[in-house]
């Protein structure tokens, strides 16, 4: 319709609705049914499912900065379910299923792209661990198999199969592996939640938790005091700080995690590729940029500065994997603060305070869990603290009983 286009191009009328996707921050009421601390993906997803499935809409999301500006904006958006433990695989597989239909559900494109994820093994021990992960994953309905170097070369012809003189012996090929636009995930959930009546309060920082005996009854913020029936904390890197304000400790240590992105180039790399020995993963975004990242910083810190050491070592490893990357230029580099548990599994469910629920310990791997966290946390809140089976293994008290869910081997190299 070229004439139609011309008409709109020259005219002042815009053919589509001009309603903003998100309402402006409203005034803070004195009482809500549920207060969610943290407006990252996890917080807004929890609000969305509370409104959608449980009819609970008198909900305030309190975010100290802006929507999705924490780790939700900083992650490298790897979505996968090829973990090691049955508890982990069951949980993350549900999240992958939810992700697959999220764009339709929101009527908002989150640019979900299932290109498969390939993890490289350079030692016999890793090959054995991969065999176990493939079996566990297949058992729970995931698509994961062990493939040989010929198959790897077909999938990723540009990959160096002898990086840093550590020949690639095999690969864990996870067809369900995917990526999505992380900001859009937060926006889609926020839009769906606010349309159903949830209030999103940006620039609203929780500075104290109000308690009556062993029960949380409200929060103090820089914009006033709010009372509520239930509180959910979903503040990622600041989980231990907020828990400290609430009066208890969490078994977490906060480390910076850094990542970077290059200038865009023509599409050449379909799967997400990571090397277990080089601690480096590389993927090409739909804009053509190469996003790559690696392990956490070597010591704990609440500071998102960038370091030369990380840039040097990570670039060296990425260039070993894809040698022509040495010709490319870096566009941006950044860090996020990640709340690490010692077993690389999250802490979800009840806290020492009644009516105060935890979604924490998401470390370097929580973006992929955003939908299932929202769904299970909403169920937990709506059922007044009855813990859903899917998250029972991630209870805080597992540390007191030495019942950790060890996902270190399946997490450290590729998040």
């Amino acid at each position: 319709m070229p004439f139609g286009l011309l008409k709109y191009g020259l005219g002042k009328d815009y053919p589509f609705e001009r309603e903003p996707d998100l309402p402006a921050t409203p005034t803070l009421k004195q009482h809500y049914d549920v207060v969610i601390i943290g407006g990252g993906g996890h917080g807004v997803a929890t609000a969305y499912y509370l409104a959608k499935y449980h009819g609970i809409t008198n909900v305030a999301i309190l975010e100290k900065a802006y929507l999705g500006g924490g780790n939700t904006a900083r992650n490298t958006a790897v979505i996968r379910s090829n973990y090691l433990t049955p508890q982990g695989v069951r949980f993350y597989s549900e999240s992958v299923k939810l992700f697959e239909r999220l764009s339709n559900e929101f009527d908002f494109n989150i640019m979900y792209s299932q290109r498969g994820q390939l993890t490289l093994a350079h030692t016999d021990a890793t090959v054995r661990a991969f065999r176990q992960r493939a079996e566990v994953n297949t058992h729970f309905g995931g698509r994961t198999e062990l493939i040989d170097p010929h198959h790897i070369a077909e999938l990723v012809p540009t990959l160096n199969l002898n990086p840093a003189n550590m020949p690639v012996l095999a690969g864990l090929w996870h067809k369900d592996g995917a990526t999505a636009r992380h900001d859009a995930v937060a926006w889609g959930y926020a839009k769906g939640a606010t349309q159903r009546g949830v209030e999103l309060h940006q620039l609203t920082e929780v500075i104290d938790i109000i308690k009556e005996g062993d029960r949380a009854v409200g929060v103090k913020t820089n914009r006033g005091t709010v009372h509520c029936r239930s509180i959910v904390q979903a503040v990622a890197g600041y989980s231990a700080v907020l828990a400290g304000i609430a009066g208890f400790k969490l078994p977490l240590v906060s480390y910076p995690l850094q990542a970077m992105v290059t200038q865009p180039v023509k599409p050449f790399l379909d799967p997400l590729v990571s090397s277990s020995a080089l601690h480096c993963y590389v993927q090409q975004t739909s804009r053509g940029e190469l996003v790559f990242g690696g392990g956490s910083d070597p010591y704990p810190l609440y500071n998102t500065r960038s370091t030369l050491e990380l840039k040097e070592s990570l670039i060296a490893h990425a260039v070993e994997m894809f040698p022509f990357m040495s010709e490319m230029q870096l566009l941006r580099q950044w860090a996020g603060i990640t709340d690490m548990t010692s077993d690389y599994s999250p802490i979800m469910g009840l806290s020492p305070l009644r009516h105060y629920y935890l979604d924490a310990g998401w470390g370097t791997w929580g973006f992929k869990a955003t939908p299932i966290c929202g769904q299970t946390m909403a169920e937990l809140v709506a059922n007044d603290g009855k813990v859903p089976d899917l998250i029972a293994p991630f209870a805080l008290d597992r540390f007191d009983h030495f019942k950790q869910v060890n996902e270190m081997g399946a997490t450290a190299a590729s998040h």
Partner: protein
Amino acid sequence: MKILHCPLNGPRNISEFVYGGQVKPMPNPESATDTEWAAYVFYENNSIGVVQEWWLHAPSSYWFIVERHNGSDTILRTYDPSELLSNPGMVSLEDAIQ
């Protein structure tokens, strides 16, 4: 490049060092309950402020103490652990300043 001042080897690149965890008093392994032991092994303060930590200079296998602000990443003081261990009860810095 960030420099850490090693009490034994002088100023060195921080990449030569390995972080070894927060200084905290160890309960007696013979008499501690499981919960006490779990608290010692898994829980750290992880708040923002001055922390007292174990660090290792890897090439010389030398362990020492670092006092650091974990918000600004400023290293305030480094010293030999004898200074700490000679202190009965091994009071941690956080306890001392409270």
